[in-house]
């Protein structure tokens, strides 16, 4: 049996087992035992993926064909596993994080009635993510793409009884569909141009296709990536997605699924190098990186702050892709996966300890109560902020340096500023949560405790790579260069050193200012807010994105009944589905009036239709 197939089958197996036995039929001897299955299955996949990495390190490129889905019409869709260095890295990231999240969920979800369902969904997600990463052709890529979207929908809506959760789930799923719609258009275009969907055949024939077509394909695929990775302007679903359980936020909305967009763009590097799309990618990335960072400064929900920091970090990756530094993007993805997952799991531990409280204003001084969580959280923060020698320092500085080296000085400026802001809001977060005076009430303090080992072990386990992953950089660059290009101009060491020290200084300064404001209380944040006044409110309201969208689209029907093209246009350009729905509802209402229950009218339609058909057939 093919090793890669084995790799994906284990999570699927766990999904089916815990889904059918545990969740659907509630077999008595199985219920609440899904954790064993899940953890073991993902553990095995973890081992397999490390084995694959090992094989790839020895210069092998594994290509296995699982089965062919024969399709009438010249297209044979084959499902298989294709492992080059890029895939191997992604596999390791996915399985590692997924393993720790499984372990963590054992403790975190323990009292949840939907325990088995949760593990079933986790298995489903891991399966589809692995299938996505392993895909040797665009069809399987699309398949996995949709499947991760589906499982993310299920997991965000896990607490389906909360209306907010249900709505967040729909929002996420539909905005993803907007992206996926563009994506499948791109896939169709590819099939249209190349006559095949296989990566190799497509990429090897890239130079035979005009740059214009390539740009079109690139744009369409980029649409999918923007939807999946929650980049501007489709970013609004990610913060809402925090309605889901925290392990999910860690696994799907921080480490793996949202990174799929980056992975896809890196995988399609030949197409993007061929077209003119890269600047667009960069601009989107920079906008997201900077804007999300500013929003992160003003939020109070711990998970939302982390969500916005995720947005901004993904923005960094897109910016790196935009300047053609694919490897640096992947490297940041690699490091970011670890410390961001760590951050989310830590926040989960905090929420767990606080008894479900998520507002940072009601926390503080938690260091005394949960040491492990606090230490690991601080480590992850430093890593994210980019304090040497932690992981984030290497990857982020590489990206910033690359933007400078490739003469995108505006990008460079905003990304550096973004680094400063990152330091600021992360510092604010840790000082508000773990240090300073305690702002929670007595009975919270009573049951405030360090979390069980199933929660702390993953924290420690993830803390290690967050510290050391950075040192892999040279090896990583060399290793990935076998599968994807990396266009970065050389700059003199002096400049490089200057840049690095500048960013580090800014980051340290950010932390210091944060401490100055929130720890030593030299300036009250309210005063700053009042100084910035309108700007503050603007940012605090997340640039009024939701409001703008809802205005445009809930009242959008006021613009009159848009023609169908207009409808498509709106759908694609700003895919706020509620709005489009209200638009279409209108036309639906108009149509509904024709459905008078009187049978004579129906016959009249029939006759009119007959006439129309006759005339058409007559004329042609």
């Amino acid at each position, binding site marked *: 049996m093919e090793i890669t197939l084995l790799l994906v089958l284990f999570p699927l197996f766990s999904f089916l087992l815990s889904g059918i036995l545990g969740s659907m039929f509630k077999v008595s001897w199985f219920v609440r035992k899904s954790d064993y299955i899940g953890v073991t299955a993902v553990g095995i996949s973890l081992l397999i993926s490390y084995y694959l990495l090992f094989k790839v390190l020895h210069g092998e490129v594994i290509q296995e064909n699982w089965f062919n889905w024969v399709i009438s019409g010249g297209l044979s869709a084959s499902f298989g596993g294709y492992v080059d260095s890029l895939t191997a890295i992604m596999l390791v990231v996915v399985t590692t994080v997924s393993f720790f999240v499984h372990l963590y969920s054992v403790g975190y979800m323990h009292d949840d009635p939907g325990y088995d369902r949760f593990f079933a969904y986790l298995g489903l997600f891991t399966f589809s993510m692995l299938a996505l990463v392993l895909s040797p052709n665009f069809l399987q890529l699309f398949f996995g793409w949709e499947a991760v979207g589906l499982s993310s929908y299920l997991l965000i809506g896990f607490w389906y009884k909360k209306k907010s959760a249900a709505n967040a789930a729909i929002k996420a799923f539909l905005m993803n569909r907007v992206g996926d719609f563009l994506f499948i258009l791109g896939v169709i275009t590819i099939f249209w141009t190349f006559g095949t969907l296989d990566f190799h055949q497509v990429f090897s024939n890239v130079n035979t296709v005009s740059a214009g077509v390539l740009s079109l394909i690139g744009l369409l695929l980029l649409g999918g990536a923007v939807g999946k990775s929650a980049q501007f302007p489709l970013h609004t679903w990610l913060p809402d997605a925090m309605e889901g359980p925290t392990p999910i936020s860690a696994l799907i909305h921080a480490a793996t699924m949202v990174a799929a967009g980056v992975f896809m763009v890196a995988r399609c590097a030949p197409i993007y190098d061929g077209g003119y799309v890269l600047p667009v990618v960069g601009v989107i990335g920079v906008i997201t990186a900077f804007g999300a960072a500013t929003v992160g400064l003003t939020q109070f929900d711990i998970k939302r702050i982390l969500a916005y920091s995720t947005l901004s970090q993904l923005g960094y990756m897109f910016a790196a892709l935009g300047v053609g530094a694919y490897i640096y993007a992947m490297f940041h993805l690699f490091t970011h996966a670890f410390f961001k997952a760590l951050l989310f799991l830590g926040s989960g531990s905090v929420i767990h300890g606080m008894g479900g409280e998520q507002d940072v204003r009601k926390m503080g001084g938690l260091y005394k109560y949960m040491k492990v969580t606090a230490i690991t959280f601080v480590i992850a923060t430093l890593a994210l902020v980019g304090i040497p020698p932690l992981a984030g320092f290497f990857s982020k500085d590489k990206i910033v340096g690359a933007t400078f080296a490739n003469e995108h000085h505006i990008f460079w400026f905003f990304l550096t500023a973004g680094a400063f802001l990152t330091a600021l809001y992360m510092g604010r977060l840790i000082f508000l949560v773990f240090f300073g005076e305690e702002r929670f009430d007595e009975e919270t303090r009573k049951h405030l405790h360090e979390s069980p080992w199933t929660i702390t072990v993953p924290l420690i386990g993830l803390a290690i790579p967050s510290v050391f992953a950075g040192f892999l950089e040279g090896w990583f660059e060399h290793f990935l260069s076998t599968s994807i290009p990396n266009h970065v101009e050389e700059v003199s060491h002096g400049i490089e050193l200057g840049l690095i020290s500048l960013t580090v200084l800014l980051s340290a300064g950010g932390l210091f200012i944060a401490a100055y404001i929130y720890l030593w209380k030299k300036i009250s944040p309210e005063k700053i807010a009042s100084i910035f006044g309108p700007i503050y409110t603007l940012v605090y309201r997340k640039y009024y994105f939701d409001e703008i969208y809802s205005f445009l689209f809930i009242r959008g029907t006021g613009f009159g009944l848009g023609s169908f093209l207009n409808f498509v246009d709106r759908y694609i350009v700003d895919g706020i589905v509620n709005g489009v729905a209200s638009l279409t509802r209108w036309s639906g209402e108009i149509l509904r009036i024709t*459905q*008078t*229950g*009187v*049978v*004579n009218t129906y016959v009249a339609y029939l*006759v009119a239709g007959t006439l129309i058909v006759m005339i058409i057939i007559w004329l042609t």
Partner: protein
Amino acid sequence: MSPIGFFILSALLFGIGIFGIVARRNVISLFFSLELILNSANVLLVGFSKLHQNLFGEVFVFFVLAVAAAEAAVGLAIVVALYRLTGSVNTEDFSRLRW
């Protein structure tokens, strides 16, 4: 002989039938109109059968007649049932299922 008379007759019957179905509100007259339409097709079939000097058309007519009878029976039964329920035979009263 020229079959044109058949055609004109059947076309007129068809038109009248359609008119009746669209215009009338009384279910019974709808049934009359249905029979008219079916029989317009029958007229056409018989005419062609005469034109082609073979019997396929007339056999077809037999089948159409039988089916029409069955339809009429079922339809009348439905109408009787509806009349018992609502006491009306007006199609506009039978428009509770809509939109």
